[in-house]
């Protein structure tokens, strides 16, 4: 769901995401765990998906370790369910890029690190939050229902799975951006070119080439 290269206007709307879930448990899962730095020696994001959680998934001799991303039953999942402070650490967009390229379209968790959540938004990926009990219940349900659909409704701020609908929180700006399809900020900001120039000129330290 990357931005349309041809489009110069706002992006697609992301009102809700549906798909099966995959749980990744633990607080403080940092971006070095999501994608180790050695896989960032690249000049494009292509092919990063396979390296998601690499060191959690594979041992020294590339033998598979127990990790939900290694399980066949979760292979086609698109809703990642995580715990607190997910994505802390570095600003590397490689982390959400890797998850997106693995197949993740939405994240549901207790909380997210700020830069990570911003990076997700830039890719049109919602990061919605709920309290720890709600998240743990959802993770348990996903474990028992790997083929069960989860509907993340960004607009209504709910997550529905099985017979259950729970309320979740979506950051205001994120909700507007996704629901109204204005998460691709380049075109938006470019259209304010004159106001940008005025601001630049009002700053005592700016010496532009204009």
């Amino acid at each position, binding site marked *: 769901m990357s931005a349309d*290269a041809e489009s*110069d206007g706002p992006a697609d709307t992301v009102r809700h995401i549906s798909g099966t879930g995959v749980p990744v448990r*633990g*607080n*403080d899962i*940092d971006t*070095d*765990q999501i994608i*180790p*730095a*050695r896989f960032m*020696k*690249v*000049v*494009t*994001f292509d092919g990063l998906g396979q390296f998601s959680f690499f*060191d959690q998934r594979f041992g020294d001799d590339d033998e598979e370790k127990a990790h939900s991303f290694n399980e066949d039953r979760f292979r086609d999942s698109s809703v990642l369910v995580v715990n*607190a*402070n997910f994505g*802390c*650490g*570095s*600003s*590397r*967009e*490689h982390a*959400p*890029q890797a998850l997106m390229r693995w197949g993740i379209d939405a994240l549901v968790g207790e909380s997210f*690190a*700020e*830069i990570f959540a*911003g*990076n997700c938004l*830039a*890719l049109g990926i919602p990061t919605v939050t709920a309290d720890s009990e709600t998240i743990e219940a959802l993770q348990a349900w996903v474990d028992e229902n790997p083929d069960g659909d989860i509907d993340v409704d960004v607009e209504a701020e709910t997550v529905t799975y099985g017979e259950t609908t729970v309320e979740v929180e979506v*950051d*205001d*700006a*994120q909700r*507007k*951006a996704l629901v*109204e399809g*204005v998460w691709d*900020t*380049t075109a*938006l*900001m*470019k259209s*304010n*070119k004159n*106001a*940008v120039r005025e*601001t*630049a000129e009002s*700053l*005592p*330290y*700016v010496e*532009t*080439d204009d």
Partner: protein
Amino acid sequence: MSEGTLYDKVWDRHAVAELPTGQTQLFVGLHLIHEVTSPQAFGMLRERDMEVAYPELTHATVDHIVPTADQSRPYGDDAAEEMMAELEENVREAGIEFSDPTTGNQGIVHVIGPEQGITQPGKTIVCGDSHTSTHGAFGSLAFGIGTSQIRDVLATGCVAMEKQKVRKIEVTGELSEGVEAKDIILEVIRRLGTDGGVGYVYEYAGEAIESLDIEGRMSICNMSIEGGARAGYVNPDETTYEWLAETDEFADDPEKFERLKPYWESIRSEDDAEYDDVVVVDGDELEPTVTWGTTPGQGVGVTQPIPAPEELPEEKQDTARMSQKHMGVDPGDTMEGYDIDVAFLGSCTNARLPDLRRAAKIVEGREVHPDVRAMVVPGSQRVQEQAEKEGLADVFREAGFDWRNAGCSMCLGMNEDQLEGDEACASSSNRNFIGRQGSKDGRTVLMNPQMVAAAAIEGKVTDVRNLSEVTTV
């Protein structure tokens, strides 16, 4: 909401427009770029047939992948060479100034901005690197961004942001012997948590902060992000101005300095500024701090017992258990005496001149423990050159340290400097995440530079105050 703080003032001066999302379009006064997070952004720009809007407000360096031993081109690592070549091409095409290794100005992006004087009070500064918060030491509003946002900044000179809350962190008192800025920030993160700063900008204030040199302030602001705060700053004062006056930007242009100084003064937080939260830390109470776990929030005074997971807040217990297992430490023990295989003195947190000077004092006349491989990676070529001139490099070399060229190096293991197997590293860097230093079984113990020096010599985590020649900052 906060009012009258430096954050409010700098934000207002740079606000261009409100976006339909409710976010603010914020003008960027300085965009720093490096080889890891920018190539994809330039690619996105090309796809959209857009040009760099403000190349004159953009500055590049190479730091993450640059080899710190043999820097001859092409680099030994093909991937590193490709990234470097891509950056060279991008900056050449766009007309962006590049502090590459041939200039003598290359170094870690958060070291070179300040030393060239382009990091200034009241500027908005962004970079595709979370430790951009470092520049807040000068009273800049500086934060890390992702690659899509780099595209935004390249294309428009702006970034879309939501305004955050401001937490004042007041550090009172005076630091005692062997205690440094690093120990302050490790204590802040321990107390407030690795996610305590989410949604906040941290303003560091108080006697203990004001008496720090600018490098110490940089160490503190640098690790704001480890506490979840995207940005941290210190109000500019005479210490800031003295540094700036000596830089390239102002040394030969005192008129420019005088012209900008009123602006710098004007953006200081008011005495009666309102904050969303205030936290007080007693600087007198601090001792050299080390981490016992795998998040920067898992710190403890070097003489204090490692906490039992059950003593910690519930949400931290599972992580603590996992961390203690990884590190092989037991609750109740102290970290003092923990065996060390590697000593790394480097990174954007602690690889500036005063850091190296203090560490060298500990090292002088002593030898690195035979079981330890120890390395110093200066933060920049200028730091390296000055350290060589002052004889610091000789002190380190004679003691058995490897003296390297400037770069990020073993802070994140993107070049050849990496931990092997389950090696334990006494590190002056900022992150002890599992796998961070290049080996997924590696163990990182974060500490201040003097403590790294002491660990290198003793082969184990050592209370530097028990060695002679400890510096009080």
